[in-house]
């Protein structure tokens, strides 16, 4: 009985179990990370030198392969001399969770080192603005176009073939062009987010519009509605909850273009922080910054989902509980 309750095909679980699993989905990867980081025999392929001993090229805090350390240790043992000392460690690109947590905190509390530098929260705010404008401008055009294309075949036939073609062109490829046209500040960055989002957005929304039950349109047309009224009173209200869900997914899509967008023009936003820290191998800061993006993204999505439930109380899939 118990197992059928946990694994019943396409049956929703009771709320407490759902919550448990949702927490588990985050705890599980963190647990694996902790195990790999804190239990030495699981992985730890490197040795961090604490005392170089008689090995001439070793230095304190240097990371070497376990095999290299072993070989040098044996050489010193046979030849005599001070033995090198070190402890097992993971490669530099896998910092332990507590280091990342620490970096997450100190990232926000460290004042900018340069006079014209920015606090971390200011950098994040820059990134959020780039996403906001890119997504807003894209939506302003793509949503109406998508709805029209989904309703009228003529619009769809005129625009969609080209959009289908264009969506395969990688947005970052337009970087230099965007700089030439839009300058070096936010303009080209917003343009990359736009290019990365727009074409998918039109297609997804036109597809969503096409899924609207034709019986509804037929009924309205039978009652003699005009074209404009059909859109305003039937099509748009009919697809609104799905449209909203699409937009939530597409907003996440826009975030994935952030890093390439911010590499264009002047270094700015969270990307400046990530690339600069990665260049000098401060990976705990890199992970912390990636984590921040994830938290902002998930946070926004949760808020939007909550808002969606209140905006569209009639929408079944969002309210299946």
């Amino acid at each position, binding site marked *: 009985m118990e197992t059928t309750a946990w694994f019943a095909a396409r049956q929703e679980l009771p709320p407490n179990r759902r919550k448990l699993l949702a927490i588990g989905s985050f705890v599980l990867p963190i647990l694996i990370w902790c195990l790999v980081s804190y239990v030495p025999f699981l992985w730890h392929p490197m040795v961090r030198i604490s005392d170089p001993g008689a090995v001439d*090229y*070793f230095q304190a805090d*240097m*990371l*070497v*392969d376990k095999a*290299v350390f072993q070989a040098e240790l044996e050489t010193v043992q046979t030849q005599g001399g001070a033995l090198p000392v070190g402890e097992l460690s993971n490669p530099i690109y896998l910092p332990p969770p507590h280091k990342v947590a620490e970096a997450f905190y100190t990232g926000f509390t460290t004042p*900018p*080192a*340069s*006079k*014209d*530098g920015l606090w971390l929260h200011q950098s994040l705010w820059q990134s959020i603005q780039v996403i906001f404008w890119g997504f*807003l*401008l894209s939506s*302003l055009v793509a949503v109406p176009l998508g709805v029209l294309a989904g309703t009228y075949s003529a619009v769809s036939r005129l625009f969609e073939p080209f959009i289908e073609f264009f969506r395969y062109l990688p947005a970052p490829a337009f*970087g*230099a062009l965007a*700089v*030439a046209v839009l*300058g*070096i500040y*936010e*303009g080209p960055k917003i343009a990359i987010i736009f290019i990365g989002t727009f074409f998918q957005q039109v297609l997804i929304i036109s597809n969503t519009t096409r899924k609207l039950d034709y019986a509804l349109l037929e009924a309205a047309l039978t009652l003699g509605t005009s074209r404009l009224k059909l859109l*305003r*009173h039937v099509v*748009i*209200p009919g697809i609104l909850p799905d449209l909203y869900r699409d937009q939530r997914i597409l907003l996440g899509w826009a975030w994935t273009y952030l890093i390439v967008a911010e*590499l*264009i*023009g*002047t*270094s700015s936003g969270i990307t*400046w*922080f990530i*690339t*600069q*820290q990665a*260049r*000098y*191998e*401060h990976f705990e800061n890199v992970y912390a910054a990636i984590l921040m993006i994830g938290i902002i993204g998930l946070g926004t999505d949760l808020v939007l989902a909550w808002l969606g439930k209140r905006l569209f109380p009639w929408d079944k899939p969002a309210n299946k509980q």
Partner: protein
Amino acid sequence: MSSSSGITGFKQLLRRTVLVAGLGLAMVVEAAQPIKIGYSDWPGWVAWQVAIEKGWFKEAGVDVKFEWFDYAASMTAFSAGKIDAVTVTNGDALVTAAGGAKNVMIIVTDYSNGNDMIVGKPGIKSLKDLKGKKVGLEIGLVEHLLLLNGLEKAGLNEADVSIVNTPTNETPQALASGSLAAIGAWQPNSGEAMKRVPGAKPIYTSADEPGLIYDVLTVNPVSLSTRRADWEKIVKVWGKVVTYINDPKTQPDAVKIMAGRVGLKPAAYLPFLKGTRLLTLEEGKQVMVKADGFKSLYGSTKIVDDFNVKYGIYKKPQDLDKAIDTSLVNK
């Protein structure tokens, strides 16, 4: 009724968006006032940060705005005509010019003095040991030139090694993978390669051929001719910067400012500064005298020019008389 209010709201939003976009455009036009210089993460260029934070440009009465870029992005912005000047190597100044964005080198900020290296894996003790082996570096960039220069001195030539095209920031991993005998990279990548492969050593560096790689401030010729007085002031500020960094009394403060720009601790930044030989205006003057060989910017740039043509980076040799303007440092 809710939908109609939604539409008015939407219209308002649209109007506001157009307004904001318009304002943005106006700001761009207005921002054309200060001279814009693009700089990036190399000690000889980060040095400008000292002048920025000390307010020396304002003191000199010149309106300058420095914009921080990734190196490649700074060249893109300059090529697109969005900034008035950019800090690059003399070789890349030529490449940029060949691509259509003509530029004039007015200051030699420094030459690489060990930061660029060919790093051999353990057992490779000199360039001679590379015979018949694989070397990973980015074809056409300065490390390629560095290797060829070294091979020639070691009595070898390019055919004696096989070059594997490897992006500079991936060279540490490439050397660690064990399939290459050596890599060519600049700091911090070269240092990282040595950290990652215990026993790996630099077998040839830019310190062995000072002047092979000069770093310069290069200016859009239009800006140089229309705002010559401003550029003269900027050149003067550079003199002040080098004095401040070289003076043992003020060096700690300078290093602190520079390390802050790149997000490092001062102590961690010092080695990078040591691998760069900053040039005072007086030294710059001597370098900017026409001569053959690496002691002269002309000589060095000629060698890079030949190299670039030979490797098809661009087709026609560049006019070096137009690419270098010595009159500002000599004023």
